[in-house]
């Protein structure tokens, strides 16, 4: 079990990480999400021991690893650019960690074959890594990182340098491999769908701080802040005021507030999937259709209500009026509106 305690790191006085606390349980795959520049890679390097924190501790099963050099931590790291050794062939790359651990040659050979079979590259032992395609290099890098059975495997945007189609195919494989091996992992990515596909839990980094750590569904259903909501593509965020009378004042009108929120200025999140056409729900809005996008089973509609724009998702069998026409939306405010702290 990995524990990070109050990790701080700054470069030339510019803070990059500001008090990170995080726990990764044994066998768990944790995705670390965040826009570029949010400190994901720095955090990974600190856990790996490639960089030292200015403050804070890295613990494994309670033992302090902060001062332990990278090669004695028993952690694995799969680099975004794979960093395969160009002077070693596929087998030589996968065997490297095993050789460093002092495995006997016969055992190394068996393990290499096993790992290559696991990543779907059986029989690739003698190939030169420089002659492999991007996807194949990615698999070799994964096999190399997995082979010594690291206590913790870190993957730094492992699919980042691959094209989109290949990425979609490999992220499923990757998730299956990590879970089959019960591999404790931290998976860094900036792509939320990749995180959903691979991870048990996801942590969202924002400007050096962890904005939220939760299971993917929970992250999506209950974003902790406007930043999290925006990052996950939930764009209907409106400034509001929560009164003492538990009424939420928004540009779209006054609605009963969900319980538990403190009065004052807030952000109101209108969930895109909580609206229906027509006038038979507890609350109604009248607006004008200004855009629509067909997305297979769903239809994404842009609706302007006065000065405000809403993006909503409807089943694609719904018949929308032509663009520019007025329409009515109905929704249940309790289900559709979430109150988030003002940012």
């Amino acid at each position, binding site marked *: 079990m990995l524990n990070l305690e109050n990790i701080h790191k700054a470069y030339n006085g510019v803070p990059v990480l500001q008090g990170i606390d995080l726990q990764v349980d044994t066998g768990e795959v944790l995705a670390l999400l965040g826009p570029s520049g949010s400190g994901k890679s720095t955090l990974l*390097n600190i856990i*790996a*021991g*490639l*960089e*030292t924190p200015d403050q804070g501790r890295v613990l494994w099963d309670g033992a302090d690893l902060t001062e332990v*050099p*990278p*090669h*004695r931590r*028993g*952690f*694995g*790291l799969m*680099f975004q*650019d794979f*960093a*395969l*050794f*160009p*002077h070693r062939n596929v087998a030589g790359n996968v065997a*490297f*960690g095993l050789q*460093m*651990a002092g495995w006997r040659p016969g055992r190394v050979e068996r393990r290499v074959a096993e790992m290559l079979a696991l990543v779907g590259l059986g029989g690739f032992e003698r190939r030169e*890594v*420089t002659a492999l395609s991007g996807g194949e290099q990615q698999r070799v890098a994964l096999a*190399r*990182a997995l082979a*010594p059975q690291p206590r913790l495997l870190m993957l730094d945007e492992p699919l980042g340098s691959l094209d989109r189609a290949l990425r979609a195919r490999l992220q499923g494989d990757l998730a299956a491999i990590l879970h089959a091996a019960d591999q404790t992992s931290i998976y860094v990515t900036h792509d939320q769908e990749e995180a959903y596909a691979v991870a048990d839990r996801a942590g969202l980094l924002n400007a050096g701080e962890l904005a939220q750590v939760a299971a993917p569904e929970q992250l999506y259903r209950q974003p902790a802040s406007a930043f999290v909501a925006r990052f996950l593509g939930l764009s209907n965020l409106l400034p509001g005021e929560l009164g003492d009378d538990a009424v939420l004042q928004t540009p779209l009108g006054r609605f009963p507030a969900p319980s538990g929120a403190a009065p004052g200025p807030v952000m109101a999140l209108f969930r895109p999937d909580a609206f229906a056409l027509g006038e038979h729900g507890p609350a109604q809005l009248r607006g004008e259709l200004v855009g629509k996008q067909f997305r297979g089973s769903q239809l994404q509609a842009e609706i302007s209500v006065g000065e405000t724009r809403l993006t909503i998702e409807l089943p694609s069998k719904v018949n929308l009026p032509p663009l520019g026409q007025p329409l009515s939306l109905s929704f249940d405010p309790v289900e559709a509106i979430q109150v988030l702290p003002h940012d």
Partner: protein
Amino acid sequence: MDAAVKPPRKALLALLWLLPLVFLALFYFYPLGSILTLSLQRGGGLGQAVAAVLGSPAQRSVLGFTFWQATLSTLLTLAVGLPAAWLLARYQLRGKSLLRALSGIPFVLPTLVVAAAFDALLGPRGWVNQAAMSLFQLPAPPLQFVNTFGAILVAHVFYNATIVLRLVGDFWGRLNPRIEQAARSLGAAPWQVFLRISLPLLAPALAAAALLVFIFNFTSFGVVLVLGGPRFATLETEIYYQTTALFNLPVAAVLALLQLLCTLALTALYTRLSARLSRPLELASTRAAPRRLGAGGRLLAGLYLAVLVAFFLSPLLGLGLRSISRLTPERGQTQVQGGGLTLDYYRSLGEDPRDNIFFATPSQAIQTSLLYAGGTILVSLAVGLPAAWLLATRQQDLGSRLLDPLLMLPLGTSAVTLGLGFIVALNRPPLDLRTSPLLVPLAHSLVALPFVVRSLTPALRSIRPRLRQAAAMLGADPGQVLRHVDLPLVGRALLVSALFAFAVSVGEFGASALIARPEYPTIPVLIFRLLGQPGAQTYGQAMALSTLLMLFTGVGMLLIERLRIADVGEF
């Protein structure tokens, strides 16, 4: 910063900077500075010293001949090389790559080998004259080649044709042929296309190649000395003559200064030109599909290329064969020997042909050369490795930007000038190295340093910090990282550098001719002495020694070529 590879401490870094800088200061700038002081010794400024030497008609004609032979050699080289460059660039021909490879061989051979090779082919005891004499029962060799102006010119073309072939040919090949086709479609005849379109487009490449050839001809030493003979003097041979025969160091110093100024100006010009070459104007995105020649054209081209191949091959083959065929003794010699193949000359390499106390045997010269080459490898790597590391890892530092051109300076300085500088500067306190066995390796290291640094720097640069981190994450401690990642990746480049240093050292003649001690001649110095001696036995020894030297350098260069092709790049 990554903690896996700790940044070296300041003191260590300073030491790394100092090593190449001190080396250059002591063994490049100090000797050249001493030449400058010596030439200004007689009072008056630089201009007065030059004027004094040029006041003598003899020295004026030396300067004049240096330019004249270089110009003529360059024009001839262009005349021989340009048609080949055009054929290689535009047409699909069999034997193209063979010609390209063959033409490169002379370029890397030591001058003494080339001189000996032409002697073996066209000299008085060469194949052509021997054949003519036995065929037509002539009493004397009919072809006078050695000690003629023609010999200098032919050897220079032999040496430098590859520059025109490669530099101009490659540029030509990348020129978009559609431009020429467009000119044809607008009504231009082929010769008009060449004059008005191709030639102007090629101009920068042509000028760069011509200038480079000119620089090499201008500083050519061994060829002029051995093939030109005593009647022809260039700045280089005159410096050598003034130093070794007349001991007139002040005059030699002024000549060296003159030489230095000329080469520096020419090199600066070349650098500017080649910078323009790297910004091509109208190049094809991919290499244009080569065309095929008609039947008549194929015949002509084939004939021309065959002659070129013979030109590049015959002196070298002639040399090798000469070293293993028995020579008919000259008139006046009583000993009668038959013709045929023999290894006598190789067997006799251990014998002193002259019984002179200052005259080492060929096998001793081989030993000396190999020892010096070993010393050169050690010194040039010891200086070149830190320099290359600094250039590779601290690209942005002011020091790197200064060091880079400084390291290339020896390349633009003639070896004879370097040798003279060593004689002038390093023969008295504070640095008296006259009797030091390191003197020759130090001079050779200076010549080898640019090659060493140029092959090490990219290799060191190609090791991304990521690879070291990856190794550390797989459990490799810093020592294992060095052994399993750094060394294997730089190993090849180290080997290439060592081979360069070796090849430079065993073949170097200009500096060695001045500073090698008489009782410890290097291989080229001894070949020079042997070629100057009468007698079939010494001649055979010279041929055998030259053949060995050709093999040494040839194998070295072959290894370099092979190792470099498989160089580690980024992927």
